[in-house]
């Protein structure tokens, strides 16, 4: 066995060397940093890391912090509506574009271009359009509709929906592109069979075609979910968490505590919470998506 291994490594030594950068990145940049982040969350670190151990004290503080509670609540609301709207809208766009429309590629280009832009840009643009002193509301007032109110970005009750609007604008093209690619792969004879069976078109989509597109649907949901968890840029650009703390999100909470509030222990506790959540949610998806069909050189 040992001799076998030595011979195997010798024969493939260059391949082992070539994979060293990747090994270093995984071990140090991913696993190492992750481990250290988790370790720090059990310390009393403030401005500088400390090596003491305070148990779950930081976590207790964290969940007592109203800003963190708000952040989590906001994230839940944003995630729910963002995923729902993006998915439904993206599917509808794909299905409608698939009806043999003219100027198909023009429509495709228009619906996907926001995805090519940065979240910062998305946040800034919608901030302007929804800004009551400048955007749609102002324009409507100028046209004589003085009762018109569209003040989402400065209204604590509505600011989350402003962010949802901007992110939906940014992301639904992604769903459209993936679903459309899937629709194009559906055997045309399946469509013929459903016509012989007399199944109405909407029923065909719901009962037959969308279930067939499961891989595309999972892919797009995974991509959208990741962008939600990581959501930071768009909030900073659009509202910077305001008004007040009405649009705080966890990623911003962590960044603020790391770099402005010098509360590393609390920040790492928060990031550990995010880490665990993501791993719990993503592990089954990743497993089913990538590892069952893993490459041949295993």
């Amino acid at each position: 066995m040992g001799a076998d291994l030595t011979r195997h490594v010798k024969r493939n030594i260059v391949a082992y060397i070539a994979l060293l950068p990747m090994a270093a990145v995984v071990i140090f940049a991913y696993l190492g940093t992750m481990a250290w982040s988790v370790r720090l969350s059990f310390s009393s670190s403030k401005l500088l890391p400390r090596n003491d151990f305070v148990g779950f004290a930081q976590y207790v503080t964290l969940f007592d912090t109203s800003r963190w509670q708000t952040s989590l609540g906001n994230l839940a609301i944003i995630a729910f509506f963002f995923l729902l709207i993006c998915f439904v809208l993206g599917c509808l766009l794909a299905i409608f574009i698939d009806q043999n429309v003219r100027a198909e590629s023009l429509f495709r280009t228009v619906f996907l271009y926001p995805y090519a832009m940065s979240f910062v840009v998305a946040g800034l643009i919608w901030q302007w359009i929804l800004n009551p002193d400048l955007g749609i509301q102002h324009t409507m007032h100028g046209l004589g509709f003085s009762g018109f109110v569209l003040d989402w970005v400065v209204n604590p009750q509505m600011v989350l929906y402003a962010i949802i609007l901007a992110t939906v604008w940014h992301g639904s093209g992604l769903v459209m592109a993936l679903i459309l690619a899937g629709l194009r792969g559906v055997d045309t004879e399946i469509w013929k069979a459903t016509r012989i069976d007399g199944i109405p078109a909407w029923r065909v989509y719901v009962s037959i075609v969308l279930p067939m597109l499961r891989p595309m649907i999972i892919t797009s949901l995974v991509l959208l979910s990741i962008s939600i968890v990581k959501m930071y840029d768009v909030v900073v650009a659009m509202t910077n968490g305001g008004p007040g703390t009405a649009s705080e999100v966890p990623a911003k909470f962590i960044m603020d505590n790391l770099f402005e509030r010098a509360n590393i222990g609390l920040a790492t506790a928060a990031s550990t919470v995010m880490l665990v959540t993501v791993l719990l949610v993503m592990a089954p998806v990743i497993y089913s998506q990538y590892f069952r069909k893993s490459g041949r050189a295993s």
Partner: protein
Amino acid sequence: MSQAKSATTKRPLTYHEVWGRVGIYAFLGVLALFFLLPLYVMLVTSFKSMDEVRLGLIFSLPQQFSIDAWVKAWTSACTGLECTGLQVGFGNSVKILVPSVVLSILLGALNGYALSFWKVRGANVLFACLLLGSFVPYQVFIYPLVRFYAKTGIYGSLPAIVITHIIFGMPVMTLLFRNYYSGLPLELFKAARIDGAGFWKIFFSIILPMSVPIAIVAVIMQVTAIWNDFLLGLVFAGRDNLPMTVQLNNIVNTTTGERAYNVNMAATVLTSLVPLTVYLVSGRWFVRGIASGAVKG
């Protein structure tokens, strides 16, 4: 779609079908307007003078077409006290972009090649960890990385941000190339080995030349991702290398006094020009990138 793909007909469409068609175009048309609205507002505002902006008609076309705002955004817009315009950020972004894209693609190709053609024990576990890592929010890694760069003395420098982009681009790039190479015939590799070619020879003479299509996809993905990055640039690039997105946000959100909306919008369009151009030119390749990079962060 099945109806649509049928042969030409001389049968007139029924009322039902006519209204169906009208409905489809109405739906798509209205949504297209919604999607284009921000771009339109940005463009028209950026060509207006401030006097016109103050009128508050964001949808009206500029009465006096002026490129002053663009010039100002490019050369003299202020971030705090410095008034050097976006050109600095543009230069920084290019400085960050070029080495990051080249190196991350080369490494991704190398990893993908070693993973799909060579037997390296433990490589798949390593790859699994890498993929898993790409789902984790950056916030988990950021602080330890900051400390690490600080220790090695490169914190806040060009190498730091380039290395960071390579690290966080590695999962997608590796996945992209690995999947592509898994689709190449294994016989090709075997034939080359029988011809006596070694690891690097096969990589550079056979595999890399066959990688052009996937490399194009990789370039599109990395250019867009790195150009649009905000968080990593903000944290790691340091004051002198802040990328365009960060500078844009600073220009827009830190100005005091009256906001020069026309300049801000010109700045926003300028910042989006590179990814938009990539998007418009690459067309279907862009979609292919999205589909194959399902773990993109």
